[in-house]
């Protein structure tokens, strides 16, 4: 397997890990207990998916790489997650909308990977898809509940849309390693936006038009937020290399 293919697996893993880490920041701070548990459950699923992918990437990479070295010892510029995953939690509306966008994308992406020629990747996609279905349903319901809820919840949801919409375009601009891996994210664009439009309509949210789309994350050019996430996430392994418990 080539370096480029390993990068593709790392890209998928980084998306899951970084969003999982963001969601985990809600632990103990959720708006109500049940939803605190829900968002951290989703976080756990994402970190589980990231583990499967990092383990596989480590195997492809060889040279003593492990899931831990890939998660804890790479620098900001080596991370290949989409910019959306690293955006701050903001309020509950912003966290919900970010999750809804990522789950919608993952739902179509993992479906397309079920028939990928690499059977290990197809197996990870099959397993992850079962979890993503839950996330997508939960996220969609919350977008509708808030968008079509009270004046205040609608105001917050609209604000979240204006904050995050500009990061949705990056999903569909293929990086070289995606094209080389036989993955065509651009082909998922219509399905993604049509699902988003369907949920936004039910949520009484307007779909923004002609928005400039930010890109760069897939190639290691991140927003200022990722460095702070990594300093939290990687602290222990940086301060005490190889520590275990």
């Amino acid at each position, binding site marked *: 397997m080539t370096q480029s293919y390993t990068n593709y697996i790392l890209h998928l893993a980084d998306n899951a890990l970084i969003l999982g880490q963001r969601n985990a920041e809600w632990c103990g701070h959720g708006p109500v207990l*049940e939803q605190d*548990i*829900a968002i951290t459950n989703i976080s756990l699923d994402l970190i589980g*998916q990231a583990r499967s992918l990092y383990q596989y990437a480590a195997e492809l990479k060889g040279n003593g790489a492990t899931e831990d070295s890939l998660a804890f010892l790479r620098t900001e510029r080596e991370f290949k997650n989409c910019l959306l995953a690293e955006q701050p939690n903001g309020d509950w509306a912003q966290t919900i909308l970010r999750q809804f966008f990522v789950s919608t994308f993952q739902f179509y992406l993992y479906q397309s990977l079920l028939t990928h020629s690499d059977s290990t990747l197809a197996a990870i996609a099959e*397993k992850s898809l079962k979890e993503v279905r839950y996330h997508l349903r939960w996220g969609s*319901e919350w977008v509708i509940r808030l968008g079509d809820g009270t004046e205040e919840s609608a105001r917050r949801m609209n604000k979240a849309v204006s904050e995050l919409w500009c990061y949705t375009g990056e999903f569909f601009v293929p990086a070289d390693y995606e094209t080389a891996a036989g993955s065509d994210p651009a082909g998922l664009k219509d399905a993604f936006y049509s699902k988003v439009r369907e949920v936004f309509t039910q949520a009484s949210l307007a779909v923004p038009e002609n928005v400039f789309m930010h890109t760069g994350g897939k190639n290691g050019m991140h927003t200022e937020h990722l460095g702070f996430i990594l300093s939290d996430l990687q602290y222990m392994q940086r301060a005490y290399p190889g520590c275990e418990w």
Partner: protein
Amino acid sequence: MNRTAENNALWSYLEEVVDPEIPVLSIVDMGIVRDIQQTGQALTVTITPTYTGCPAMDVIAAAIRMELMAKGFSPVIIKNSISPAWTTDWMTEHGKQKLKAYGIAPPNPKQQVCSDELFAPHEAVQCPHCNSWHTSRISEFGSTACKALYKCAACKEPFDYFKCH
């Protein structure tokens, strides 16, 4: 699953290994042991996670190794497999009864409304404490990834439901 008359004893050893989150249930009852291969005294056991992030998997792998090494097998190799993906259909009938006795509603035999439809009616789940069907779902995410949270309107007790997956 490759349980046969020849390797039945090996499978019954693994019935002694429990899920640390649900200690009444063996890993065989859970359906997470998929295969056992024996070559002389060497064993290879293939297990599959319920959810990708299940934190019990490492503990389970260590427990299997200890159980089988105590029975004199060596080396004991644990393999992880994620395809085909685990489903609640693999839980044994015996396991479902033990779950219920423990106070966790077992997964319904046939998924009823576990669909992609939004705001779908909640699955009808029987209270494991008083057997009433007059229950409601509080959250589809519970104390562990594999469970949802319900409450019973008859006996007023909250309970976990091992959700369909």
